[in-house]
């Protein structure tokens, strides 16, 4: 049982280790994380992908859950991929846009 407190910035920083291999950028700066809910040592992540039918769907979801479970203070993690609202490039950070060659929105 982990006892260390966890917070959103720590989780976001952890999720920056998970990349979308096609775009070569981490999923946080791509704007794929919609929400993070922390309940004690449980973390629920609501996220999306750049396109429905993305071939990396399961790998990225699995990677997010693995990264969360490896985080000290997290005992359980749920990752849900949703398509509404659909992802768009305006959700990316400046770093994400630079890393992927996306023009300014």
């Amino acid at each position, binding site marked *: 049982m982990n006892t260390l407190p966890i917070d959103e910035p720590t989780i976001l920083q952890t999720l920056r280790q998970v990349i979308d291999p096609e775009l070569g950028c*981490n999923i946080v700066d791509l704007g794929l994380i919609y*929400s993070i809910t922390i309940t004690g040592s449980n973390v629920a992540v609501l996220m999306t992908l750049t396109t429905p*039918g*993305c071939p990396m769907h399961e790998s990225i979801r*699995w990677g997010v859950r693995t990264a969360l479970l490896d985080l000290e203070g997290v005992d359980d993690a749920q990752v849900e991929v949703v398509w509404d609202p659909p992802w768009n*490039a305006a959700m990316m950070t400046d770093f994400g846009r630079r890393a992927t*060659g996306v023009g300014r929105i």
Partner: protein
Amino acid sequence: MFALIGLAALAVGVVWLVARPSLLAQYHYNQFVIAATHLFVLGWICSVVMGAMYQLVPIALETKLYSETLARWQLGFHVVGFIGMVWMFDDWNMKQLGHFGCVFAVGLGLFVYNIARTLRRVPKWNVTATAVTVALFWISLAVTAGIFIAIGKDNYDSTEGLAASGGVFVTWLRSVAGFMSHFDAIGAMHAHAHLGSVGCFTMLIVGVSYKLIPMFTLSEVQSRHRAAWSIGLLNIGLAGSFMTILLRSSWKPVFTMLAVAGLGIFGWELIAILRARKRRTLDWGIKYFLTAVALLLPVSALAMVLSWPRLPLNPFTGQIENLYGFLGLIGVVSLAIIGMLYKIIPFLVWFGRYSRQIGRVQVPALADLYSARLQAIGYWSYLAGLVVTSVAILYSNEPGVRCGCSLLALSVATLAVNVGAMLTHLFRPLLKPLGFPPTTVAKIA
């Protein structure tokens, strides 16, 4: 496996052209050109297209492949069938060609059944699913037509005894041969070639473009009506072209124009998709693919010229026909396939080696699995090879064909080295400890 077999066939085919440039510098109706064409079409293009469809159709259409076992069985039939066919074309043994053709057809039947059952699971029907479905129909018809042509060319001397004893199959073969005698050999061959190259390969290029180009460039289909019209017109044009080529009808230009109009609408929609893209930088894989699509312009122009009924039948016209086939298969289809291979193979390698490591260690991006520099060298040498070979074909110049095909061989070599680099990751993965990328303020989008 399909992709590796395809690449091996491409390498053998290109070396064959370098060693024997007369294949492209002389009229194409001879056994060696037909053998080489089937090596490229069945060995290279079909192998990669079938392997890619097993991977991409479930992904693009958000479903699962019906049966991997059937796909493995098909691989066996496919390899034995196409190697035997190329060998028998080279040897001009029509009887054995028919046998190997049937082996290939069994494999194709398994492929069509497998993909058709997969398509039945598609949750949301769209233009890509329609294009894949009609491509399956056209390739089935192309192989059937090919077998009928082979049946029509055999003399059945060795079946006298069987026929006398009432062999139903031999009687059927002879009736097919009788039916095929109503058509001239070159017209039937050209009609058969169009079913495969336009009906299956071009149809798939058009259909998957509507899914993959938006996916890779972060864009969207801009007009579903345009997409539907492009597929519809291409189908009507092809159906009419098949009949008019087979019957040498003067209506050929009408149906060619319809097919070209379909491709024109496809180009219009593709430009709209690219204009709306969020990802401004296009990677080399996409550049290969889009260049292949752009080559549809000269190929369509040549199709219009060749469909003209009053075109004089002289050696130069024959060379234009060679150029049309060369640019269609080695230009449009092959370049599109190479572009997509640069997407498919890294994905398969990454998925096999890194998908369970993500989140635990730093894994490479797909673009880190190969050399972009080699991709660029391969791209420019391929284009140079196409230009030099095309000019040499028009002038029936064998040294020129050899020079151009050597450039193509250089490009294929860069592809082979890059594929080798990708496959190396299966045995020597590139894993680093986790680290935090440089970034901006942490916040949810």
